[in-house]
């Protein structure tokens, strides 16, 4: 049944992703009344699907890549809903919702067969480790999109062509706030997620865990994340350079994700 709910969620995200286009790009507010409820319903069914999966398996965390991606999709959909409610903007949906669809549609139609076998699988700590890190990734992705939107709006304003200035872009100050706030939200999530993961690893694997490439890259990612926030706050970095910086950190995150394949101790395994 959980797969059915996940498929329903994917379909609803798809509807929301399509409806958000006229709502944002062509200033058609009626479509907003389809996009937001569809995304909300999608997030609800997505949550039900995840909860049902965990309940049936007597565990509280995703155990394969697809489940992890699915959780990330739910977080991105939630981020869209949060922004729509707080800033009344649909613009972020243009980017967030298609990614949410993609992250949901893959596990909905091709469930993963990998698994992990840690002694802490049933505990809240491992769940927190995964959930907090996923929240940090979602926050970083959101910050990257906000920085990109800032850059586009800035360019258009500087070119001074009114006919080319789309109405769907949020004001510069709003996108800047979203970019910074999402980073500030992501930092404690990432820090706590890494600390919890390290504590668990120390107990189960021992100090050798810290020689693993994925683990090392994760700490490099945290340093890059910290550095980015420091630079942004200290010098008020915006525009093109902010996009470069966010893109760099995002690439590090992708590298951390990809390092799953290189890791000996931190990876999903085929059963």
């Amino acid at each position: 049944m959980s797969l059915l709910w996940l498929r329903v969620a994917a379909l609803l995200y798809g509807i929301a992703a399509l409806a958000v286009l006229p709502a944002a790009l062509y200033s058609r507010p009626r479509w907003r009344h389809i996009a937001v409820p569809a995304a909300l319903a999608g997030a609800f069914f997505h949550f039900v699907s995840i909860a049902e999966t965990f309940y049936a398996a007597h565990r509280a965390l995703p155990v394969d890549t697809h489940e992890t991606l699915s959780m990330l999709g739910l977080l991105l959909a939630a981020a869209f809903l949060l922004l729509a409610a707080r800033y009344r903007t649909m613009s972020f949906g243009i980017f967030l919702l298609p990614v949410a669809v993609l992250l949901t549609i893959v596990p909905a139609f091709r469930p993963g067969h990998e698994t992990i076998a840690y002694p802490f699988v049933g505990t809240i700590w491992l769940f927190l480790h995964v959930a907090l890190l996923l929240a940090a990734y979602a926050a970083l992705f959101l910050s990257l999109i906000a920085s990109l939107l800032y850059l586009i709006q800035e360019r258009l304003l500087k070119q001074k062509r009114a006919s080319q200035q789309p109405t769907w872009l949020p004001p510069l100050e709003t996108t800047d706030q979203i970019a910074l706030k999402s980073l500030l939200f992501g930092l404690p999530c990432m820090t706590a997620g890494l600390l919890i993961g390290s504590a668990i690893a120390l107990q189960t694997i021992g100090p050798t865990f810290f020689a693993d490439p994925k683990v090392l890259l994760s700490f490099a990612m945290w340093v890059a994340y910290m550095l980015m926030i420091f630079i942004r706050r200290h010098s008020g970095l915006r525009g093109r350079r902010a996009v470069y910086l966010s893109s760099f950190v995002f690439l590090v995150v992708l590298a951390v994700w990809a390092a799953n394949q290189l890791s000996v101790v931190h990876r999903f395994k085929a059963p």
Partner: protein
Amino acid sequence: MSELKKNSGSLLLLGVNHTTAPLDVRERLAIPVSRLADATRTLAHQPGVREALILSTCNRVELLTVQDDVVAAAVPPMGMLRFLHDYLNLPANEIEPHVYEFREREAIRHLFRVASSLDSMVVGEPQILGQVKESWTVAREVGAVKSTLDPLLQRAFSVAKKVRTETQIGSSTVSIASVAAELARKIFGSLSGKTVLIVGAGKMSDLAARHLIQQGATTLLVSNRTEARAEKIADSLRTPAITTGVIPFDQLHEQSHRADIVITSTGAGHVFTPAHARALLHRRRNRPIFFIDIAVPRDVAPEINNLEGCFVYDMDDLQQVAAQNQAVRSREAEAAESIVSREVERYGERLAQAPATEAIKQLLLDAETLRQQELARTAQRLSPQPLTPEQLAAIDALTKSLTAKLLHPQIAALREAANTPEPDE
């Protein structure tokens, strides 16, 4: 349209606007808000006038009335001309050349166009809808709008809303001051809490500053070579909600980082150079700053626009944006006209159906009363051997079905008759 004539009089609209009358005529016809209630009441009490509404703005004065058929048939409409003559003390022949007149369907169309801002001097401006609503509120308070004008005006409001939401007629601004405010909103979002700095004294900069204050800016700084003049401008713009201050002209570069929006109009050449702007950005920790340069020659070096975080719009840029926005509005106005035409048709059909709807309602009510009476009589007749609840329900369903089937041809005929145009149309 004879729909109105059938039961509720004739709709007649008389008025002057910016296209038909010069300003001095409009000035003499204008009715201030303080006198609007009295004027509406007086118009509504004219012989033959059943309902009335007066719309008086700086660009138009319009009298919308529902009149008895005989009175309305007069050309020119005597009741309304008498009102203008008596109330405003204006000879009818002086204003008659400027007056336009719309009757029935055309009056509805005109009202919908006015409320949707398609008849405004600046097409798409949002104030007119509020002014129509204000007139309607006043007319309701004095009991001058009733069964005909009340639903018509409410329909006009929803048509105007539809035009706003389904087209982009009001999405772009067309005056220099409002373009500047719109651009500021694209940079800062809400202008609440933002600081505006006026450099130099000029009518245009004053106007732009007022516009920005209207949009939410809360602090206003003024810098001028003559400090007394700066003080005077600051005083004129100070309100309980607005904090104002003066920056001595020789400290302009040291203190201009306090402002989010700088309006310059000194015409003294490059008051702000790229070096100044870089220092300013550094002090602002790269927070964006918006220069509105309305001076000729320009006060702000155009290269400043290349700096990240600085946005420079001079007079030409603002005028160009305004012209482009005007073109967008004209395109959207065509779509809006189609919506209005569709809505006029729809309203006409609704009016045409109204008498038939009333007759159908009455027919159904009479039939139901008769059915209930017959049911009661039958129940009484069978009282020695009362029916079970199931039997009663079956009889109830049977009689309902019979009544509906018997009435169906009559209802269909009434509906058809309402949709058939009269021979004189």
